[in-house]
């Protein structure tokens, strides 16, 4: 038995196989032991280090080859070979049939007939009522103060012990266009309830990662000019609806002199809220810095306009939990969209 083993080992050593294979008694094509399956720590780490080294060397070779090819192509005046696009989650997002298309007549008709069209067409000015849940503590009031400064024409009323439905009625009587309820849990604002009026939808968002203005370094102070809105990546029908709802909180005519921009950026179903003041500047950029060889192009300065942002105001993320048709009525209302646990099963599927 031992002689056979030795003979086999000698054969395989002659073949110049990988060190791993010596331990394998079966022919090499069928079974390849992973480095992680070796029980001996020293040997395992040695094998793994070798593997990594090989991989790194290969990668460097590839990169070099790519760079050389593109440089060659540039020199020859040809087109450089196509740059490889990295695979991202956004690239590989599951195909969603509810994505809004630009030529969708139904969408535009729906927009005209939906609850926000009155505000968005500037027939009514938005008027927002902010309130809290019954027990408000700690960061809640600070957050509300900042919200009041962000949203123009917003008013804060204490909650008392009124039922939410009563508050909705009250607000309708006073001609508000939307209600924001900030819900606190464990001394932190936790959820945001956005209710459109008079019979607008109710959106329930979960709030996270709240950073108040005083905690932001080099923050700016917002003025009272009407802000500009930027709503990014609201692609699906649901997203479009949510986007319009957010839009209806703000006045439709911004004051550009104020140079204030409020952004709601949707990425993978998380809506990031940012509030900036911006400034345009002309920046000189030297061209030809990349290409060190050609001296002719050096010294040419190209002027580019850039925008610089200074963050002011709070920073938080929202995630839609449910969208209900009609004003707040959890028991009897019709839910247009509810987040369920099995929507999270795929990493490439997003709804907004």
């Amino acid at each position: 038995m031992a002689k056979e083993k030795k003979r086999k080992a000698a054969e395989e050593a002659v073949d110049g196989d990988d060190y791993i294979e010596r331990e394998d008694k079966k022919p090499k094509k069928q079974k390849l032991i992973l480095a992680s399956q070796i029980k001996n720590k020293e040997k395992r780490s040695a094998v793994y280090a070798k593997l990594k080294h090989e991989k790194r060397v290969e990668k460097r070779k590839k990169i070099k080859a790519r760079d050389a090819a593109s440089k060659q192509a540039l020199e020859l005046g040809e087109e450089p070979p196509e740059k490889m696009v990295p695979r991202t989650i956004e690239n590989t997002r599951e195909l969603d049939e509810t994505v809004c298309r630009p030529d969708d007549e139904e969408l535009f008709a729906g927009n005209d007939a939906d609850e926000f069209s009155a505000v968005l067409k500037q027939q009514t000015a938005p008027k927002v009522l902010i309130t809290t849940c019954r027990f408000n503590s700690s960061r809640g009031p600070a957050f509300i103060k900042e919200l009041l400064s962000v949203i123009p024409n917003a008013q804060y009323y204490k909650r008392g012990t009124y039922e939410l439905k009563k508050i909705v009625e009250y607000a309708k009587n006073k001609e508000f266009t939307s209600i924001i309820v900030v819900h606190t849990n464990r001394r932190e604002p936790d959820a945001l309830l956005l209710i459109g009026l008079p019979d607008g939808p109710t959106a329930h968002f979960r709030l996270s990662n709240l950073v108040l203005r005083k905690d932001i370094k080099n923050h700016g102070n917002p003025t009272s000019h009407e802000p500009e809105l930027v709503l990014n990546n609201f692609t699906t029908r649901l997203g479009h609806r949510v986007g319009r709802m957010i839009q209806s909180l703000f006045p439709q005519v911004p004051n550009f002199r104020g140079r204030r921009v409020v952004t709601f950026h949707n990425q993978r179903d998380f809506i990031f809220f940012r509030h900036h003041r911006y400034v345009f500047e002309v920046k000189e950029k030297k061209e030809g810095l990349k290409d060190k060889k050609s001296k002719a192009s050096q010294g040419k300065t190209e002027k580019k306009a850039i925008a610089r942002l200074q963050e002011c105001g709070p920073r938080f993320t929202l995630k839609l939990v449910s969208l209900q048709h009609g004003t707040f009525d959890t028991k009897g209302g019709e839910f247009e969209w509810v987040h369920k646990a099995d929507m999270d099963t795929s990493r490439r599927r997003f709804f907004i």
Partner: protein
Amino acid sequence: MQNDDVIWDVIRHHHCSYMAKIQTGNFCRNPYNVTGICNRSSCPLANSRYATIRDHDGIFYLYMKTIERAHMPNKLWERIKLPKNYMKALEIIDKHLEYWPKLLVHKIKQRLTKMTQYRIRMVKLSKKVREKIMTVPRKEVKRESRREEKALRAAQIENVIEKELLERLNKGVYPDICNYDEEIFNKLLDKNKEEEQEEEEEEAEVEYVEGDYELEEELEDDIEDMGDFLKANNIDDIEGDEDDLEEQPTRKKVKKASVSYPLKQDDGTEKVRRKDKKVIVEVERDEDIGNRQHNVM
């Protein structure tokens, strides 16, 4: 034979499985107990003639046991339904327990009072809207926070915002942003003037400028990014059209120039391509800005 004293003796001094001893006293867990305290007079086991009120689904029943049925545990307790009206219930109790010891009847009536009170309170509470506390499994909480972080990194918000603002600037949404550099502006002015003069000498090609829709104003502050489609197809938002109809009277109709860096709308600094050499371009005047230079072929 049923002897209450013997039973009480045994129960009290040895072991009663219904008794609960706590700091403030001895309590009886027996569901048929009127007062709930472990007492000689309140023990349902040690009293052969006993009555209670029990509540089932919001309806109160008067339960009675007599010594005549002591040998039939199955049929020991007789129950009578009490009406929801408090006064009527009291009357019925009086009727049934007419010749019973007064102490017991008194305790029963006290119990009835208390139970009616808490029934009223329960009904009131159930009508009120209470917030329901829902828990989220920790796994989900962690998962969400992880995904949020990654999404934040993928979003590159600042870059996106800056790009968006620059695009809007290029489209000419901002008519009067006045924080550009004066020198550079003037330099560009001169440079463009030179270029114009050069161009006039040579035969200029017909330059087709982008269509009239550029002359329309975009008053919106909020162009939703519906992917790249809208921009690719150069379709204005529908809202844009509607906004135009309702533009403020004070705003002047400014001519949009698709220039990248003269930050202020002005006539002279426009790039050459905006002025079509072979076509008369009619321009509406800005009241503030001085005389325009028309290039007319």
